[in-house]
């Protein structure tokens, strides 16, 4: 019983992070139909920038929470600029190119960003400085830290804010219109370029936030961390139905929980034949099974075939 609760808590934390990253994938995909493979790298850059800011401010005598806040803010701003630049430089010129062309560009950009990060921050693991004194809470035999609480609460707040933005504001309406039909949206006076840029900027900001969360949860960062994180988050987005924001949130949480439970129970289930290093398999196995029965994800609409 305590394993179950413990793994649920861990899964929730991880799932909140996946959900934030998945939102970045799904917003871009929903509007221009591109798998932004470089998004995981944006998350990684966010983590690295936050790390640099926090380390350089650590000796300044400011209160730790303020330093953490500044680090987070700088990382979010840096990633917003990065996301905007990516769209402007790499993707916008390819908007009418064959479908696979921007995908290869995205892969190229991902390689570029990864290696730029390696040149700047080196190839070793970086220890993320703990800024919050860790407190451990115990509930029903399971334990969790205040960092985990902060991650889940912050993620929930941000997702609420994003929902408000998309459902209730003018730019949100423009985004939904563009996602539905860019040509008609253009005729209705929507500035498509601005909407697409906004999707990239918002997605990157969420990614930076998620990156900082991962950094402070695991307390390490690495120039390759964005790859697997991005892959999992993308899986989560597809699981929920890519292009669907509620789906990305649900998919992220679900994936986090499935992974944690899988890692906790796989040994018992298979009589110790398969160990917890098979953890990464769950995401993909669940994905394949779900897509077999619901080909457009859990919450994806059954759309007609588009050419």
């Amino acid at each position, binding site marked *: 019983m305590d394993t179950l609760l413990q793994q649920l808590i861990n899964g929730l934390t991880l799932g909140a992070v996946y959900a934030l990253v998945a939102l970045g994938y799904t917003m871009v995909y929903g509007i221009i139909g591109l798998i932004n493979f470089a998004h995981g790298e944006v998350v990684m850059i966010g983590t690295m920038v936050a790390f640099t800011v926090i380390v350089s401010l650590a000796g300044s005598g400011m209160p730790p929470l303020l330093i953490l806040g500044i680090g987070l803010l700088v990382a979010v701003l840096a990633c917003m600029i990065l996301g905007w630049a990516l769209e402007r430089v790499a993707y916008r010129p390819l908007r009418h*190119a*064959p479908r696979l062309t921007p995908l*290869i560009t995205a892969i*190229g950009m991902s390689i*570029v960003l990864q290696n730029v990060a*390696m040149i700047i921050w080196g190839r070793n693991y970086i220890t993320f400085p703990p800024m919050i004194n860790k407190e451990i809470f115990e509930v029903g035999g399971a334990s969790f830290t205040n960092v985990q609480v902060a991650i889940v609460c912050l993620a929930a707040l941000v997702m609420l804010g994003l929902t408000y933005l998309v459902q209730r504001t003018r730019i949100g309406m423009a985004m939904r219109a563009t996602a539905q039909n860019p040509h008609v949206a253009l005729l209705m006076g929507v500035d498509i370029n601005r909407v697409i840029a906004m999707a990239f900027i918002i997605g990157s900001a969420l990614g930076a936030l998620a990156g900082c969360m991962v950094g402070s949860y695991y307390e390490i960062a690495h120039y390759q961390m964005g790859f697997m994180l991005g892959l999992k988050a993308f899986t989560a987005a597809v699981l929920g139905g890519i292009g669907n924001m509620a789906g990305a949130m649900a998919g992220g949480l679900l994936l986090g929980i499935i992974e944690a439970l899988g890692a906790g129970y796989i040994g018992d289930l298979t009589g110790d034949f398969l160990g917890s290093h098979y953890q990464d*398999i769950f995401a993909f196995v669940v994905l394949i099974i779900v897509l077999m029965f619901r080909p457009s994800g859990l919450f994806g609409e059954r759309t007609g075939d588009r050419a």
Partner: protein
Amino acid sequence: MNLPRKKFPFWQQHWLGLLLLATALLAVPFVAALGGQAWVRIANFAILYVFLALGLNIVVGYAGLLDLGYVAFYAVGAYAYALLASPHFGIHLPFWVILPFGAALACLFGVLLGAPTLKLRGDYLAIVTLGFGEIIRIFMNNLNAPINVTNGAQGITLIDPIRIGDFSFSQTSTILGVTLSGPQKYYFLLVALAILVIVVNMRLQDSRIGRAWQAIREDEVAAKACGINTRNIKLLAFAMGASFGGIAGGVFAAMQGFVSPESFSLMESITILAMVVLGGMGHIPGVILGAVLLTALPEALRYGIEPIQQAAFGRMIIDPESLRMLVFGLALVLVMRFRPAGLWPSSLRRRELAEATD
């Protein structure tokens, strides 16, 4: 307008070009050997990638099924060869048994992957194939306990080379007065295999099956309405692409004498896909060009970057390995920016693209 040209067989129309090409192909291993056997090995890898890229071209280029896990089949073929021809299990079967077996096994995996994904479209298919590739890699990495099947991350070593009677492909020997080193012999084997896959690709392109694939690529619903059995035809694309991947894997294992999960990462799948798209999807010469360029470019950079940095700054400023990958990534981005349909697209595709931008 275009008048219908009298149809000569392909080899009659282009005999001079083919002759020159054949001479060049014959000369490559001897010219490369002047720079050391390492260059022959690079040439071998270029041809192996031509083979792989053309195999993937069937799936992605012809049938339009975006496969991001192609390396899984390559891995299946490589491990099949490694397990059946190494001291790991003490089995030493000859290559002409294992290569077809590896191809058949990879084909089976292709159908296994294809069957549940038939309903999926475009990007959903991409992520599932990617997941499949990762699953295979994770299993290779961890199947060393409780029963040691794949020897985990250490991989399998001492794999038998390809051998016909006493004639081993890994040793230097003299045939008709010409001394051939191991890599040079593999070169000719690989060229023969590559020609095989090129012929298969060419013959498929305008066959009934090839046309069915293209119809599915352009519009699956319409293809179905025309009476094409989309299920079987899509499965066939997966199966054929996978078989070629399996053969390539077997040759890779024999040539290297060593396989480990590291060789079959997602990055490898992505590189092969990049070759297909960068060269010109669905166009055989384009795909060959893409494969050769993307194999040669990183190698050229490996040898080029160090001296250039030394000359420019007098010392190494930036880690050459990451600079190399940086240039590789930038090259992908730039080519796609200025040649969105690939470096050497087929005339049909170029026409479509020109119409689309009007």
